[in-house]
């Protein structure tokens, strides 16, 4: 049955049919017809203060909930402001649906006011870019967009809608089945490959698992845990995989890679089989790839066939959903082997930890707190299901090392694009998705200032989060590289202690607290959990602080610098 309505109304109907409850956006000339529909819609519109944040919030919403996040921007600058957020979501396989207004159809291509070729701009950073050319096709486009964004390897999709398509009336058919003949993602593993993988695993003496964000996306955490425990197999994750495996588990190695743990980066050199699940062998995880896991045969499970062999040479590819694959491998392993209660190999974890225990604890004297202590304290203060987002820079790497994630979808970071300014809006989006749990952003003073204006969104829209600003008054990771690799020629990294984050928070009507001790930090976090406004915690740390261990860019994991 069809219903007559205009394009804008059809967009709203389509969103409702997809179960969308919230959208993040800013109105503009080309989206006014849509905002007229939002005026009395049951969909909640969350007014943001920069479109980049609308995209990051939709992304954070998606990462926290597993449901697609939706953002809206007007034509021209509104749409181009989404680019960084959409690119971030694309690199990290997050299902974001971005709706952009466009100039009217007769004006397209004439460079009128606020026209940008957003389909052209977004094509390389989305799974698909739609442009609605008539009102009647809106139901079909929206169905396809959500289907593409959320199935196979999730990714952002953009829908560009000219203003006159929003105002045109048409008979809308919301029951059209989705048919996309060029898109049939394979999710079922090939039985032969599963059998081979099982064979490799049960015959291996030193198996290790490397788990990436794909395992979280497919909900494979229980299967990862079961397999690891059955085979006594140590589990490392990529930065994106944090939370897929409880990091307090005895078999957990933590993060592998540039700022990975000592045990993860050492053990991977000794493994004889590496089962990689939903991880794309990014350079930040592997270091120099030809010396990545020199003695291991690699099994690579990924739903995206183009990831097989793109970065690493693999011995056994399995193109399928991670959860389905591990479920089948687990069943076969169970038949072949009784659960291992003990393993000499797994004991290597504690051996390595003891062997490489840092001799000095890198304590820097002064009126500073140590990031390691702060994040350990943060973990203690937050409940296990709390969600943490990070910015990018030293804060991201310290988060990776010192904040153990316990559950999937509780840790989010811009792993692929490395977007400074991601954490705070992503935390806001996550809080919208999960108002029942505390949400915190591990920030640096450099990153936070990139999207701090959305403190206004947090206050106006009643989305309270906790921002932990590890404040060293410099761009810390830049300072670290200049200290280590550029002979301390510090260039363009001095932030000079500006702004005053307490006053900044105050200006927006949020709480700002500067803390002087770990005990004070702990009590402020505990108070902030119950607060109905956002709390910005200014934590003074030393500008001389480094993140170690570190594998220098382009080096092999074995060339890790410890202190």
């Amino acid at each position: 049955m069809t219903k007559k309505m205009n394009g804008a109304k059809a967009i709203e109907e389509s969103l409702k049919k997809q179960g969308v409850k919230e959208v993040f956006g800013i109105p503009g000339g080309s989206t006014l017809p849509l905002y007229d529909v939002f005026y009395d819609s049951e969909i909640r519109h969350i007014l943001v203060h920069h479109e980049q944040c609308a995209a990051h919030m939709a992304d954070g919403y998606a990462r926290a909930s597993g449901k697609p996040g939706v953002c809206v921007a007007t034509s021209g600058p509104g749409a181009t402001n989404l680019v960084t957020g959409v690119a971030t979501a694309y690199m990290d396989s997050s299902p974001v649906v971005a709706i952009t207004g466009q100039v009217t159809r007769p004006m397209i291509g004439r460079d009128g006011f606020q026209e940008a070729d957003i389909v052209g701009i977004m094509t390389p950073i989305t799974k698909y870019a739609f442009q609605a050319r008539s009102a009647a096709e809106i139901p079909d486009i929206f169905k396809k967009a959500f289907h593409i964004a959320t199935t196979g390897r999730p990714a952002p999709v953009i829908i560009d809608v000219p203003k006159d398509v929003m105002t045109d009336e048409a008979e809308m058919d919301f029951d059209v089945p989705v048919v996309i003949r060029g898109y049939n993602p394979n999710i079922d593993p090939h039985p032969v490959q599963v059998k081979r993988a099982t064979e490799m695993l049960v015959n291996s003496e030193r198996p290790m698992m490397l788990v990436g964000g794909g395992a979280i996306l497919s909900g494979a955490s229980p299967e990862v845990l079961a397999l690891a425990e059955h085979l006594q197999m140590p589990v490392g994750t990529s930065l994106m995989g944090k939370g897929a495996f409880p990091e307090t588990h005895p078999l957990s190695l933590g993060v592998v890679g540039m700022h990975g743990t000592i045990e993860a980066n050492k053990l991977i050199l000794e493994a004889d089989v590496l089962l990689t699940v939903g991880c794309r062998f990014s350079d930040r995880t592997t270091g120099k790839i030809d010396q990545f896991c020199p003695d291991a045969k690699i099994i690579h499970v990924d739903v995206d066939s183009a990831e097989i062999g793109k970065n690493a040479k693999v011995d056994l590819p399995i193109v399928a959903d991670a959860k389905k694959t591990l479920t089948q491998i687990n069943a076969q392993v169970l038949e072949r082997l009784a659960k291992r209660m003990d393993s000499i190999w797994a004991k290597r974890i504690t051996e390595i930890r003891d062997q490489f225990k840092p001799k000095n604890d890198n304590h820097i004297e002064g009126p500073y707190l140590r990031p390691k202590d702060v994040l350990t304290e943060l973990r203690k203060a937050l409940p296990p299901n709390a969600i943490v987002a990070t910015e990018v820079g030293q804060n991201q790497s310290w988060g990776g090392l010192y904040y153990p994630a316990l559950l999937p979808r509780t840790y989010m970071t811009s792993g692929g694009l490395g977007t400074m300014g991601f954490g705070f809006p992503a935390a806001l989006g996550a809080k919208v998705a999960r108002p029942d749990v505390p949400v915190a952003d591990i920030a640096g003073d450099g990153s936070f200032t990139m999207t701090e204006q959305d403190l206004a969104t947090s206050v106006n829209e009643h989305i309270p989060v906790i921002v932990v600003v590890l404040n060293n008054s410099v761009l810390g990771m830049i300072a670290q590289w200049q200290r280590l690799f550029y002979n301390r020629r510090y260039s363009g990294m001095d932030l000079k202690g500006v702004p005053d984050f307490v006053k900044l928070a105050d200006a927006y009507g949020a709480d700002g607290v500067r803390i002087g001790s770990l005990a004070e930090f702990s009590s402020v976090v505990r108070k902030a959990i119950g607060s109905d406004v956002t709390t910005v915690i200014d934590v003074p740390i030393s500008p001389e602080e480094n993140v170690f261990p570190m594998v220098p860019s382009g080096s092999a994991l074995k060339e890790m610098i410890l202190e």
Partner: protein
Amino acid sequence: MTATTQQVRGQAQVQSHVIACLVENKPGVLYEVANMFRRRNFNIDSISVGAVEQSDMARMTIAVKGDEWTIEQVIKQLNKLIDVVKVNELDSHDAVIREMALVKVHTADSNARTEVIQYTGIFRGQIIDVAPDSLIIEVTGDSDKIDAFIELTRHFGLKEIARTGITALARGGKAIRE
């Protein structure tokens, strides 16, 4: 080439490959495909697009040079594009590969004219336009044949050349279908 890519790629041997794709016949698809090549740093030697037996689809024939790793990635990345329905690499020994060129040759005198007409005959080309001091010749064949014709006629003075890029079909009963 960095050590990283060397390890993945093994012994790199660059060869020409012909890839045929069925794509949705709608605006923006050519951009989608061409953009993927640019963004992934693959080089297109030629690309030709035309209608097929189904009006809502089109066929792209892409000539691309690369080592084994590159071609595998090209095919996978093409498959990943939503509007690309089917991708096949054609085996050049088991496919008919054709390109057409229009060549405008300067013919200064009747000797030159006679010689060009002879070459055209040998290459089974056709003269499709005659002017007092020039001829347009249509030549069809594989790219090597067209290169050879152009080389032979170059010394007369080539005024203009237009080549279509290759188009191709697998021999025998095989067909690329949805």
